[in-house]
């Protein structure tokens, strides 16, 4: 009886595409989809029986070199059948893992993927001979188009091990692989293609660095463009055209009282205000869906395109010099990028770094200097000066919004570098150099990209909405008890004295522990009673990023770093926040 199938393979062999083909739209659980960090689980049917299928992180061998690969090896223990996905364009090195699997007497089926790409490269593989030599089913597949997947599914039940393949030394394995390759593979001479030219241009420093700057700038521009337009033309139309009348009706039916206070919230000038009302059905729904979701969608769409095209390893190569000085190596840019979407997957992605020192630095810098999209989209909203959509009454805008937003980013980038340099010098341990495969450029498949984006959005909604609603609920209780004003008064000397900010900002920071987007929402809600000047808003947005991660990220970091290191990391965060807050006060407020 087959109950559990595990997909194993090297990184960049299209394993996730095979997984997505096998499971259809039916992915039931995924810690975090789309990266090699964690596994995805799904279900598929084989001859009417429902079977669980797990997509393990990519690994080159069964001797793991980082935590992500360790996860992959652990998955094996539960497998009834292993589908070993092999890159047909790199048969030799992929067979290493195959032999290791067969040495362990695991029942294996092989998907010989990227079959079309191999043809293009003039690589001819005799799959029947390979099947005979390995003694297990070998099915050529082109996962992107779905070719071969049906055959793969029908042959899963033929999975078997090969008793003739015994555990051997490294050398023994390579000799065996060499003899297999000689018998099954023929390679024609290949010419330089246009893809190779593009690859060269994007990795050579002289052309690569300007191209990288252009791609990063363009990516951010696209994210803002999509986000803004979705809000203006789709989400706000829905919220103000459909949802608001609905809530008004509900509010009328509920009548005044405590239930109304919790669900709808307080009225501002006799009306519901989605940001300021702080009701579970108003603010609790509008912030995650009306303000954050459009940007989350845009961000993950662009990120998925960057990932699937194969650009990120090239970027990692270009930034390696800088990241090495910060105690990591170029691949450290991946946790940072993921963290810009949400810090939780960013924290999980630190697993791909090899040593404790690297993971500690990467995680601490992530928590200190990388704002998540949820927070950013709210920050964009603060600095929106469009008189119609401007939510904030500020004393006077001296500069266009891009200046304020750039100030926040500039501070965080400088901080990332300075804290990184210090940590690299003061943390004990090794920082191994970069060693990273550069996969060929591939045209992203729209369906795969959309599916990945959708899975990430679903994941965001599942993570964000409960916390937001809980946050709004807690805040409205505290409001009603008068606790918020009391807190503001207590922290007044600290906030005012140290940072030059009104005491109520302490509430914003406290809320930030639950969710950063809600914290900025609180800040917006406060503007009905307190007037801020734009530079104060810059300081608040910056400190909100630095001082502490949100509770979801915190929980993941404790798990990834251990309590002791997390305490250390927390001390660094808090002291950095205080120092930066004071410096910004002098520089930006001049007092």
């Amino acid at each position, binding site marked *: 009886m087959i109950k559990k199938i595990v997909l194993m393979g090297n990184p960049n062999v299209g394993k996730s595409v095979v997984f997505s083909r096998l499971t259809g739209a039916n992915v039931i659980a995924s810690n975090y989809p789309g990266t090699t960090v964690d596994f995805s689980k799904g279900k598929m049917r084989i001859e009417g029986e429902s079977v669980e299928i797990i997509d393990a992180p990519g690994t080159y*061998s069964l001797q793991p*070199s980082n935590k992500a690969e360790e996860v992959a090896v652990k998955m094996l223990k539960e497998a009834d059948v292993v589908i070993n996905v092999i890159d047909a364009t790199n048969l*030799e090195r992929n067979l290493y*893992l195959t032999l290791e699997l067969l040495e362990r007497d695991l029942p294996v089926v092989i998907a010989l993927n990227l079959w079309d790409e191999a043809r293009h490269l003039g690589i001819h593989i005799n799959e029947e001979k390979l099947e005979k030599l390995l003694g297990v089913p070998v099915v050529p597949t082109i996962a992107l188009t779905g070719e071969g997947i049906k055959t793969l599914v029908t042959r899963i039940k033929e999975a078997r091990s090969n008793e003739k393949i015994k555990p051997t030394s490294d050398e023994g394995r390579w000799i065996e692989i060499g003899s297999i390759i000689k018998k099954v593979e023929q390679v024609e001479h290949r010419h330089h293609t246009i893809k190779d030219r593009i690859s060269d241009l994007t990795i050579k420093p002289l052309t690569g660095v300007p191209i990288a700057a252009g791609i990063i700038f363009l990516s951010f521009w696209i994210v803002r463009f999509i986000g803004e337009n979705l809000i203006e033309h789709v989400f706000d139309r829905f919220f103000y055209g459909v949802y608001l009348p609905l809530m008004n009706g509900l509010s009328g039916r509920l009548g005044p009282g405590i239930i109304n206070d919790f669900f709808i919230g307080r009225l501002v000038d006799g009306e519901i205000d989605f940001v300021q009302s702080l009701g579970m059905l108003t603010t609790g729904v509008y912030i995650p869906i009306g303000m954050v979701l459009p940007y989350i969608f845009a961000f993950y769409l662009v990120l998925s395109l960057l990932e699937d095209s194969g650009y990120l*390893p090239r970027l990692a*190569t270009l930034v390696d010099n800088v990241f090495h000085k910060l105690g990591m190596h170029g691949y450290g840019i991946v946790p940072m990028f993921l963290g810009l979407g949400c810090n939780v997957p960013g924290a999980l992605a630190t697993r791909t770094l*090899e*040593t404790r020192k690297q993971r500690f630095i990467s995680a601490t810098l992530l928590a200190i200097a990388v704002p998540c999209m949820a927070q950013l989209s709210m920050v964009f909203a603060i600095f929106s000066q469009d008189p119609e959509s401007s939510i904030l009454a500020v004393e006077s805008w001296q500069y266009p919004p891009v200046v304020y937003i750039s100030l926040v980013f500039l501070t965080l980038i400088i901080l990332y570098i300075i804290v990184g340099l210090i940590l690299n010098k003061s943390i004990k341990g090794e920082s191994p150099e*970069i060693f990273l495969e550069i996969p060929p450029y591939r045209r992203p498949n729209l369906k795969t990209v959309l599916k990945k984006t959708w899975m990430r959005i679903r994941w965001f909604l599942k993570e964000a909405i409960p916390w937001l609603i809980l946050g709004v609920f807690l805040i409205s209780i505290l409001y009603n008890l008068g606790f918020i004003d009391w807190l503001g008064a207590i922290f007044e000397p600290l906030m005012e004295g140290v940072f030059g900010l009104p005491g109520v900002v302490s509430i914003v920071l406290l809320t930030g522990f639950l969710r950063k987007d809600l914290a900025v929402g609180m800040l917006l809600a406060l503007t009905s009673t307190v007037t801020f000047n734009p530079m104060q808003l810059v300081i608040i947005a910056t400190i909100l990023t630095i001082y502490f991660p949100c509770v979801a990220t915190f929980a993941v970091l404790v798990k990834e770093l251990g309590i002791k290191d997390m305490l250390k990391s927390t001390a660094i965060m808090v002291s950095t926040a205080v120092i930066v807050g004071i410096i910004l006060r002098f520089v930006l407020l001049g007092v």
Partner: protein
Amino acid sequence: MYKRGIPLAHLKKGKTGRITHIRRGYHGGPHGRHHGLHGFQRRLNVLGIREGQIIRVDSKQPLMGPITISVGNSQMTIGRGIAYKIIVEEL
């Protein structure tokens, strides 16, 4: 036994060499002390950094940055320190 050759790091961009020897201790630090070092060497081997393999230098980042190389159909970026430990004879 004496082995001829130069470190891969000294091979010029666009040049090809055959790996004759790989010096131990990829990270400069004491051998095998931290997590996964063994796996790391395995990864080098699996991606084609083994004796006898033919290797081409595709690009070098400035300031002792990493170098990008091709072995067979794989392309990869390795740190300069690793590249000093890989001894090749130029072809």
